[in-house]
């Protein structure tokens, strides 16, 4: 079992609310990622970080922001949630160096009403 945690696991909120999805890992990994995935669909990379104080946008345009102040913590924030944000959000991490496996968290299922 990977030591990467996401909270909450499920969240139902109203439109316009600000939310933060938490992701923490205890493996000391320098690289962390956020993906968005609809049921039965492909993974879309929305943000990533390759170390403290580094953040990059992924392939999918997103209205979310991230921060990386500590190695183990990589929260994702939606300033104003919309129904189009309804999806599963997966956090992942890996250590530097070629070929190392990527560990995924259990995901947060977000529903915006």
């Amino acid at each position, binding site marked *: 079992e990977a030591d990467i945690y996401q909270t909450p696991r499920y969240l139902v909120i109203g439109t316009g609310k600000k939310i933060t999805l938490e992701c923490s890992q205890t493996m000391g990994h320098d*690289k962390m*990622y956020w993906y968005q995935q609809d*049921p*039965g*669909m*492909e*993974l879309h*990379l929305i943000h*990533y970080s*390759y170390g403290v104080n580094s953040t990059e946008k*992924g392939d999918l345009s997103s209205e979310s922001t991230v921060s990386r102040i500590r190695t183990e913590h990589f929260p994702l924030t939606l300033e104003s949630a919309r129904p189009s944000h309804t999806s*599963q959000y*997966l956090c*992942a991490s890996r250590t*530097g*160096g*070629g*070929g190392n*496996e*990527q*560990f*995924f*968290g*259990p*995901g947060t*299922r977000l529903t915006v009403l």
Partner: protein
Amino acid sequence: SQKIEQNSEALNIQEGKTATLTCNYTNYSPAYLQWYRQDPGRGPVFLLLIRENEKEKRKERLKVTFDTTLKQSLFHITASQPADSATYLCALGPKSGNTPLVFGKGTRLSVIA
């Protein structure tokens, strides 16, 4: 732009047969390729890594081949079981250390008893 294709969205096979999944890519020169398994509602789990200078890797009932000339990887599950039913993702690994993995859309495998 880089593109990664997995042979089909869904593959149905009879229990005991060998399942073969295909991953093709274009406009990319990966240093390695990884295969992941994803069950519904969960994050992907790493299965196997194969590097660009390797032709074949095996792990228990799993076998992966990698042909950098054809730009293709084949993933085999021998003596398949209903418990092997899941979505399988291939991922291309970059030569540059900080570039994220590029994931395919996945192939949904169903093993019928």
